[in-house]
């Protein structure tokens, strides 16, 4: 196992495939009220891997996702997808938010159909794919329920199905299970990994503040510094896949990795708290 920390990953290697973020900086506000959210951040997500982003609150982790997804348009630096500069809107990049972003006036089925409507998928194919996706996330029998009639875990499943309905080549996940209770979160993490593997392992950027989740999910883990965010360290997770909380427990690699991650994160979190009391997530 190699837990070699690198200052910043060298971007633009030989392979053009993947999602490349190169020296991206983001500044919010104007004049004296300017806040620098991201500073010269570079990272890459290759097809088939999950890259986890961890860091203190308000360090700009979500900002990276918002730049890639096009929700933030004003930034310096470059984003490349599959060797080409990012063009928007980009249906090949799916985004799953922490908050419930299901349309409350639409049923489970109608919510899942939405991205296919946007993409102009023919009706018959829409129906067929929706049915399949509902099966994938185990929501059979709930097709005509409205989001408010579902539990938190089920709503996450609908969101996951809707994300997959977009047929994305890359996934952006912003603390997708952060708002769930502890047990449901563990279940959803496992289900996500199963579905992700079955769906051809789209390259994923997974923001979390949960170290265990990062180790369970990630092929690589990038530790963000406090604001303005930069990447402070990169870790490769060499634990065998199909990691579960219980299978990782007691493993030497897991414990070493956890300790190094926490050492990095704790320092940044303390510095961040000292710099801005009551740090806000951006």
């Amino acid at each position, binding site marked *: 196992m190699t837990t070699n920390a690198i200052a910043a990953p060298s971007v633009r290697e030989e392979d053009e495939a993947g999602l490349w973020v190169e020296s991206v900086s983001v500044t919010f506000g104007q004049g004296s009220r300017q806040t620098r959210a991201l500073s010269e951040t570079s990272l890459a997500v290759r097809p088939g891997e999950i890259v986890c982003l961890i860091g203190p609150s308000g360090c700009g982790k979500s900002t990276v996702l918002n730049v890639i*997804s096009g929700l933030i348009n004003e930034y310096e630096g470059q984003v490349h997808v599959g060797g080409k500069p990012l063009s928007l809107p980009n249906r090949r990049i799916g985004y799953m938010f922490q908050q419930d972003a299901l*349309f409350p006036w639409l049923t489970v089925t109608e919510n899942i159909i939405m991205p296919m409507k946007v993409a102009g998928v023919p009706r018959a194919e829409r129906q067929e794919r929706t049915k399949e996706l509902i099966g994938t996330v185990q929501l059979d029998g709930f097709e005509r329920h409205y989001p408010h009639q579902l539990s938190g875990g089920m709503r996450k499943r609908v969101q996951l199905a809707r994300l997959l309905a977009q047929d994305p080549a890359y996934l952006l996940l912003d603390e997708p299970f952060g708002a769930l209770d502890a047990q449901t979160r563990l279940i959803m993490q496992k289900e996500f990994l199963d579905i992700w593997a079955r769906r051809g392992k789209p390259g994923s950027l997974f923001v979390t503040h949960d170290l265990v989740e990062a180790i369970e999910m990630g092929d690589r883990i990038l530790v963000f510094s406090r604001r303005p965010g930069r990447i402070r360290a990169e870790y490769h997770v060499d634990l065998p896949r199909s990691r579960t909380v219980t299978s990782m427990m007691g493993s030497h690699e897991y414990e070493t990795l956890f300790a190094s991650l926490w050492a990095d994160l704790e320092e940044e979190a303390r510095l961040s708290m000292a710099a801005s009391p009551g740090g806000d997530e951006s």
Partner: protein
Amino acid sequence: MSIVSTETDNGTAVSTERAVGSDRTRRMGRRVLERINPALRLQQLLLFGALLLIWEAVVRVGWLNPFWSSQPTRIAGRLWELVGTGAVIPHLWATLSATFMGFAIGLVSGVIAGALLGYFRRLADLFEPLVMGLYSLPRVALAPLLILYFGIGLSSKVALAVTLAFFLVLLNTQAGVRGADINLKNAAKTMGASEFFIVRRVVMPAAIPWIITGAQNALIFSLTAVVVGEMLVSTVGLGHLVTRASATYDTTSVFALLAIMGFVAVVLNNVLLIIERRAQRYSPGARR
């Protein structure tokens, strides 16, 4: 071992989630039943009946002069004459048709204007003093002017109703459009949706509860505007009948007409409540 236990956890979690779903549905059913509580409805009727009895008794004992106050038995008789003979029908029709026309025009134009002002922030800033100024104006004061422009017939009443309905719908629509959840808009955006798609499929549906609230007020205010217009100058309509009756000191007819108007208002309100409940079936009691 660990994998087995996770799998079992998974299974139980799914079944508890199902239980939560069906429990919610059951609770919703009970809430609908509670709304038509027969015991409460009976008490309400008894209270109303008691008030009528006191009214009748006070007149019969001689504490009130029926010339001014009339009395329930006489009013009931007059109601029978007005409704039973069909004498009131053309007047009721005149009032209702003007109300619906004013409401419909106000609703459509109010939704369009409100959507534009809600969506384009700068446009809203530009129009804000004008809209608020006109909204604050006691619009029944416009009636003489409108009668001058549109004549004493139906159209002046419709116009007066529009001036009330339009602003109520506009302000509610604007608030709803502006308040549409940014997360939902972002979700559609990250699906690759165009701005037009987002407005049509996300922003407007999100504003519907607000639009319905605006419409409920607009319909009742349209009725009020039409009656006021009819009272000022008209040859037909419930408002016209009230003015005529009071001019001849016919208080019994005035009370009978008030009863008819009250009944119409209650029916209209209930129709809108049913529409509201249907439109919001996806989230009971989200906005009342």
